[in-house]
């Protein structure tokens, strides 16, 4: 055919450019979806609710402490915060949370709302990640919408874009939760150190993100194994529960006594094994755990990709 076009010049297009384009689109699609919005609202409401309960507990402890110290009862929670934080009761609660008394003693200097939010993010962030992301790849394969994209980019670029998009979604969720906790603290506490709490929250959002990201890796790894949306959701939740369950099993005294090296090594494969280290103040202290969590999340994604790269889309 004489009027067929000559080949146009190849367009500049690399893996990371495609991934960035897909990530931006994926984030937009996710934020407009009802499912993600519901889970995000639940997460933020949960963070706010936990902060409200915490400030009320704080007030109760303050009242008790004021009575012990023979000072006037306070109706303004937070005015005796430092005293409360250093009280044996709170220290005991904190020690139980981080399972390390020495670490608890260093944490009492941190803004209490930031500490609470860190706990909320580490406890509920993985569930948020799995609920929002475990079907994200399976849904596109199942509906066939992936085929529109795979005519334009390869699977590695597409997956990298999805990982980035879901990671950004996670950042949005964690930041909104932190903002909710900060505003609640500001409203509820009389002596609320806003700038110090905000700075501490930003740091804790960073460490929680890495911990939750390892679970996001688990969810995205599982989502690549099946094209069925219900199955991918079920597998995501199963993987999350199994990760905690197996780790808890490996921690049992009789298992540790029977196979100390094996149980210790196997525990490292689960993100929860590195949670405690994320409480340590200072980046140098938590850096090894952060790196291990990033490696674990990446490994889960790559393991899923080994299947995804070979299957029909």
């Amino acid at each position, binding site marked *: 055919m004489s009027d067929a*076009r000559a080949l146009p010049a*190849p367009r500049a297009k690399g*893996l990371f450019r495609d991934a960035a384009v897909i990530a931006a689109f994926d984030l937009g699609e996710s934020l407009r979806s009802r499912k993600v919005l519901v889970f995000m609202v639940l997460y933020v409401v949960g963070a706010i609710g936990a902060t409200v309960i915490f400030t009320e507990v704080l007030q109760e402890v303050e009242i008790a402490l004021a009575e012990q110290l023979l000072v006037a009862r306070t109706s303004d929670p937070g005015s005796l915060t430092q005293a409360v934080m250093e009280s044996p009761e709170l220290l005991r609660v904190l020690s139980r949370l981080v399972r390390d008394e020495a670490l608890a003693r260093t944490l009492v200097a941190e803004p209490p709302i930031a500490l609470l939010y860190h706990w909320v993010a580490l406890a509920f962030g993985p569930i948020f990640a799995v609920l929002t992301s475990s079907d994200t790849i399976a849904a596109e394969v199942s509906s066939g919408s992936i085929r529109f994209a795979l*005519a334009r980019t390869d699977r590695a670029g597409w997956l990298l874009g999805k990982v980035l998009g879901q990671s950004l979604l996670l950042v949005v969720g964690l930041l909104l939760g932190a903002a909710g906790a900060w505003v609640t603290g500001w409203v509820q506490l009389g002596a609320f150190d806003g700038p110090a709490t905000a700075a501490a929250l930003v740091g804790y959002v960073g460490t929680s993100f890495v911990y939750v990201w390892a679970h996001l890796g688990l969810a995205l790894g599982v989502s690549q194994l099946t094209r069925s949306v219900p199955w991918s959701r079920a597998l995501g939740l199963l993987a999350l529960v199994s990760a905690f369950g197996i780790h808890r099993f490996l921690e049992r005294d009789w298992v540790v006594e029977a196979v100390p090296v094996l149980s210790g090594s196997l525990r490292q494969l689960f993100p929860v094994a590195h949670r405690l280290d994320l409480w340590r103040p200072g980046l140098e202290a938590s850096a090894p755990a952060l790196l291990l969590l990033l490696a674990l999340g990446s490994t889960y994604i790559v393991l899923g990709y080994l299947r995804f790269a070979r299957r029909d889309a």
Partner: protein
Amino acid sequence: MSAALELRGVRKRYGKTVALDGLDLRVERGTMLGLVGPNGAGKTTTFGVISGALQPDEGRVDVLGSGPFDPRSQAGALGLLPQDCALNPHSSARQLLTFFGRLQGLGRAEARKDADRLLEAMHLAERAGARVGQLSHGMKRRLAVAQALVGDPQLVLLDEPTGGLDPHLVVDMRELLRAEKRKRTMIVSSHILSDLEQTCDRIAFLEKGRCIREDAIDAMRAATRRVRLRFARSPSDEAREAIERILGPRLRELRGSEATYALEADEPMTETAPRLLAELTAAGVPVLEVGAGGTLEEAYLETRERATHEADG
């Protein structure tokens, strides 16, 4: 210059089902090829293999002379309308086309401009800001066709582009495909042979995962051993009687202002065509044109019959 597409001995199985059974197909650049076959003939699988969504079990795939399609090194070269695939529902029509344009390698402004051009061409400009999930089935189909043309790809694969469209939109779509056909190589699958007949240059018949015939439409029609008669207007009852009498039992079809006459096995076209013209004119039937060949539908049915006959032995 190499062909736009060449498939050699391509096989693809889904478990025990053979979808492609040594498919050979060559499409020259600038051609608009119609792909015809019954359900399960392998049309959709062929598109999947060409676009890289499906991995062939055997055989050679050469897209635009560069081997199997690689969306990175052949960025922007392929446009695909897959069958029964849902577009991402939460973005607007414009956002979706812009996203696909970006993945084709276009810059942001360029992609946006191309999206608006295609929305206009598909009569979707008024709904450009509406979420894809809120569009009607016909609108989604037009949007899906539009995305295949984003970024001016050299090779476009359209699987059932008119499926589910209202009749007046089918006409619009046919016009659009006609306008696009000289700009690029296009492969279109459809069950509506009259659509293909009006838009395509060549046709390939697929049967049980093999190409049983591929030729120019005119050549296919001519090879049907039919004489095609076109009248100046729809025949009156009197003229209809005359036509039926003169053409006798060899009259295959009399529809609107056209009729077809099936030649006997040894009946020469060069004698029969002038004879029919003379007899019909003498009977007062206003014959406008006498030509060799039947419809594409007849060519298809004859080819299938012959293929079945050969397969039976």
